């Protein structure tokens, strides 16, 4: 990272977030470069989702700074984050089950006609285009998304994230609800997006997924960063050691949460 001359796409510095007395995120720093996939690993409750929700605007940080392309960014709610091209695919999919794919795709950013009414026809036409790119088998545009399969719903959620020129994509357990074939599909999609120069934070507790897709991994434990490093410099066992024990291997750069050696 020090060797990389580029400015990072995202740099989160010394972020802290507490709920009451519980420190969910404790002085965590993380960065992401264009066209890079950074895996964020840790146990349930390690603080990875909380850290990333600070970036997506769902939580407001208590302290710390966020830089986008080297410029300090003000992110206080999901709308602010979208202004910076930060899009999120949430763990629980975050779709409104009772409306159709096009309405979900455009939720919060509806296309409107000259008279200010909803332009459903244009939205559906656009939705057909995007979904044709992501998931050519998708046909059910008129039905509420509750009628769709897990993979189809996931492709709607991802379509929503990338359709609006996202530069930074956050995927929180994108494959948790999916079968093997659909997981492979999401993997392909991540490679495609990466090739387009989008930076991706991939949050997962499946270490295999992350090793297949990520360039770097950062491990969190008890709200702190244990360390981060390039995938090729570490073994899966070493990363497991980071997750479980907080032991930072020689191939990674230790963070404040690393076990004293």
């Amino acid at each position, binding site marked *: 990272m020090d060797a990389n001359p580029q400015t990072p796409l995202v740099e989160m510095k010394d972020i802290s977030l507490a709920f009451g007395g519980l420190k969910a995120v404790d002085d965590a720093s993380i960065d992401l470069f264009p066209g890079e996939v950074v895996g964020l690993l840790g146990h349930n409750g390690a603080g990875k989702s909380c850290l990333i929700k600070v970036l*997506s605007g*769902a939580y407001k940080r208590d302290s710390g700074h966020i830089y986008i392309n080297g410029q300090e960014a003000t992110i206080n*709610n*999901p*709308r602010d984050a*979208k202004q910076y091209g930060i899009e*999120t695919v*949430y763990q*629980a*999919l*975050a*779709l*409104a*089950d*009772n*409306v159709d794919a096009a*309405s*979900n795709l455009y*939720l*919060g*950013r*509806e296309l*409107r006609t000259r008279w*200010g*009414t*909803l332009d459903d*026809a*244009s939205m*559906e*036409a656009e939705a057909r285009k995007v979904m044709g790119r992501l998931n050519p088998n998708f046909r059910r545009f008129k039905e*509420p998304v509750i009628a769709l399969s897990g993979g189809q719903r996931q492709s709607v959620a991802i379509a*929503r994230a990338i359709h609006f020129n996202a530069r930074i994509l956050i995927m929180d357990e994108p494959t948790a609800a999916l079968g093997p074939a659909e997981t492979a599909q999401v993997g392909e999609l991540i490679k495609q997006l990466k090739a387009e120069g989008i930076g991706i934070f991939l949050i997962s507790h499946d270490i295999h997924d992350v090793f297949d897709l990520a360039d770097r991994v950062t491990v969190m434990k008890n709200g702190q960063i244990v360390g981060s490093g390039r995938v090729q410099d570490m073994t899966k066992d070493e990363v497991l050691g980071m997750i479980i024990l907080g032991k930072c291997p020689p191939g990674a750069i230790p963070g404040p949460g690393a076990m004293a050696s």
Partner: protein
Amino acid sequence: MTSAASSATSTAPNDPAIRRFLRATEVDTRMLGMIGALALIWVGFNVYTQIQTGESLFLTPRNLWNLTVQTSSIAIMATGMVLVIVMRHIDLSVGSIIGFVSTIVGVTQVYLLPNYLGLDNPAIWILSVVIALAIGAAIGALNGALVAYVGIPAFIVTLGAQLFWRGAAWWVMTGQTIAPLDGRFALIGGGPRGSIGATWSWALAAVACVGIVLALYAGRQRRARFRFPQRPVWAEYLIGAVGCFVVLGATAIVNAYPWPERVAADYAQTNHIPVPEGGLFISTGYAIPVLIMLVVGFLMTFLARRTRFGRYVYATGGNPEAAELAGVNTKHITVLVFALMGLLAGVAACIDSARLDSATNALGQFDELYVIAAAVIGGTSLAGGVGTIYGAIIGAFVIQSLQSGMVLLGFDAAFQQMVVGVVLVGAVGIDTFYRRRTAKG
């Protein structure tokens, strides 16, 4: 194997002829069910009155005209209640809002405004209506703000509001009734003079028919532009024909109801018209409250389906968290929905007090229950996210038809309540059953 397969394919085109018809016309089967239930109630009461009294009393122009007038205020509020319930909230205060707004209407028309504008100034009724709507909307917005920003459950907020505003109404009026109200204002309530007569009714019907045809044509054009699948042409013609038939039929019915003999005779005398043999026949036509209901229904449907606000209401009801994460300001939407409900209660208050030509603090008591029942019978799900405006209006007609029919038959008031209660629970029971089956299939 082959025989089983061929029989499966051969039954497929045969068996769902109805389903193919429904798909071609894109008609909502739930709506068909509700209309069927309504028709059953109407025919049932008609037969029952025929058996009991020897003449059909229910399906007469007079009763149907009255039914539309009686339904209008509940139906108007039910369209707002749909959005409240879709947002996973409830509003128990609408009946009390009617009572309070009604007292304000009475006081402004009779005691306050005449002091400044002079008696019989036409501005009086207009101003009093504006004040009534503003107060209704403000009370609703206060409910909404308490729900959205303070985080008190809507049930509690509106239960408190129900007590508070009913008490406030009594406090303003100290139990008196103010009557009569402004003569022009009373026209909002309907009655022979509060109706638009045959000519205007036919004119409106013609406009509505042209509107139906244009809407179908525009919809077809839009689909063609984006190359979406089209309805077959015969289905378009059928929908257009049925729509126009309903409009023209309803108009013929309201026009077949004449002014009562005494009112007509009075009118003839003041205008020096000779009364022909067998009395003067003056068509009543559509009553003004019914027209208000139709306009409200149209506007609310537009709001729910074609505007960003409506989309947000439904999306929030479906998944509040997702809507929030997508950047929807759900709190703001909540306030707006409750304010809209209050505004519609204000409209209903004007209609109800105009109809009685008086203002009383007891007006609208228990209306909230009928309004919620109408919305729920019309297919609105208390789980949120699901409900239609036209469904709520049909639901209001179902409830009012039951009541009006039982009144015609001379049923006890106590018995009427029992029947409405059973129908409410039964309708939701059938609906739940139906939904579960369609979810499986």
